[in-house]
């Protein structure tokens, strides 16, 4: 029992909504950059950078972060997770970095990404943009920009599909 709750056109609209929020939150003098959390935050960050270009902010730098080495459960998982690697090809000092993820749940991934990002330098600010907020936070973190909020429980599975990785744009809701 896995049902589609967001179709492709709707997902595109949610990303547009995020871009609009980022532009609205942008203050004069902010130097923006995007860092997507792997894997699905990375294509989302690229889409947002393209949408910002359409809104008069072309050429914003985009990086990708793999938080595996900063996970707080590395000692708990039975098998060593594969690390894909972080690619931030620009100096983040003084930038306003928009951290991008497809979904926020416990907040632990965001915490890990913040720790890793701060090892690269001292950005002027870090903002968090997520396509879907499914609640159930375990740490005190909250997104600045949100596409969609859905109510879920721990038994629910939220699958976000992006064409760059999954061949389609959609959000599915299932059960464990």
């Amino acid at each position: 029992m896995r049902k589609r709750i967001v179709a492709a056109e709707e997902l595109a609209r949610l990303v547009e909504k995020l871009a609009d929020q980022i532009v609205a939150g942008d203050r004069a003098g902010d130097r923006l950059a995007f860092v997507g959390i792997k894997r699905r935050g990375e294509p989302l960050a690229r889409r947002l950078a393209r949408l910002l270009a359409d809104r008069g902010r072309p050429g914003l730098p985009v990086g990708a972060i793999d938080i595996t080495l900063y996970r707080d459960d590395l000692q708990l998982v039975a098998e060593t997770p594969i690390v894909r690697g972080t690619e931030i090809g620009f100096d983040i000092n003084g930038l306003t970095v928009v951290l991008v993820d497809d979904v926020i749940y416990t907040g632990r991934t965001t915490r890990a990404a913040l720790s890793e990002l701060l090892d690269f330098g001292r950005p002027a600010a870090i903002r968090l943009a997520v396509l879907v907020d499914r609640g159930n936070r375990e740490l005190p973190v909250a997104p600045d920009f949100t596409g969609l909020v859905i109510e879920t429980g721990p038994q629910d599975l939220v699958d976000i599909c992006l064409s760059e990785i999954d061949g389609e744009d959609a959000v599915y809701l299932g059960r464990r």
Partner: protein
Amino acid sequence: MSSKAPARSLRHLLGIAELSDEDIAAIFSHAEMFKSVLGRPIPVVPALRGKTFVNLFFEASTRTASSFALAASRLSAQCLGFSLAASAVRKGETLLDTARNIEAMRVDGVIIRHSMAGAARFLSERLRAFVVNAGDGCHEHPTQALLDAFTLREKLGTLEGRRVLLVGDIAHSRVARSNILLFRRLGARVAVCGPPTLIPPRVEELGCEVFYRLDRVLYEVDVVNMLRVQNERIGAGAFPSVREYRALFGLTRERLARLARSAVVIHPGPVNWGVEMDYEVSDFPHALIMNQVTNGVAVRMAVLYLLAGGHADEDSPAPA
């Protein structure tokens, strides 16, 4: 076993012979990733916070021991040094006793160098901690082979079809053995060259050609892997003199000038300058000796991460 983590088949690193192709690929891809970590403003990640390893070196080493210690610290793990001179080994403690005592201190991994072939395997069969072989007698030195191959791949793209020549004491070199095994696995054409007294019998069975005259093969190869002349072999009947060794098997200034234009030179260090290589090699733009040292840290980070990541299952019995 999850398909997400093929590298988890790696319980210990005893030799190249025990590694699967997936293990080797995982070590290389993680080493590449860790090399980029080493280039960050803060070249430390918290991945192995709380883990403790011990460097159990029963033979002298500077670069290997410090490379492992540095790799551990870059992963936020502790690496306890163990000095042979100050240890209870001098009071007659056996290898197993030493290891058990160290394990009783709840160490997660043991990095061992020992003059006896099989020492690492001996420990791995008796300890719950993971074991990394940092050189056992004339048997294997797998992290050296891995960092050599990683360095060559970085420079040449691939080892597939490349001609690699190992020069020197093949018979007593654990580096030679591990390197031949790994280079062959990666598709290289491997040859060895040295005095007949230092070429082991049946070395062809490892899949390599044998040459006794350096000038017959040196100028055709893509990779020259020089080996250290072990001082204790000199004058012990293996070859008459340093001068003769240098004349017949040394990478001299004259030979260096005649290498193929794209040929690269590696050496596991420490180098006996003026014996197996003239000092001019250090200025040769295709000498990768310092790249080897730099990459050694990244490769050892990969090995430690893949062995120590995840949790040791407390309920699983220690292997027999």
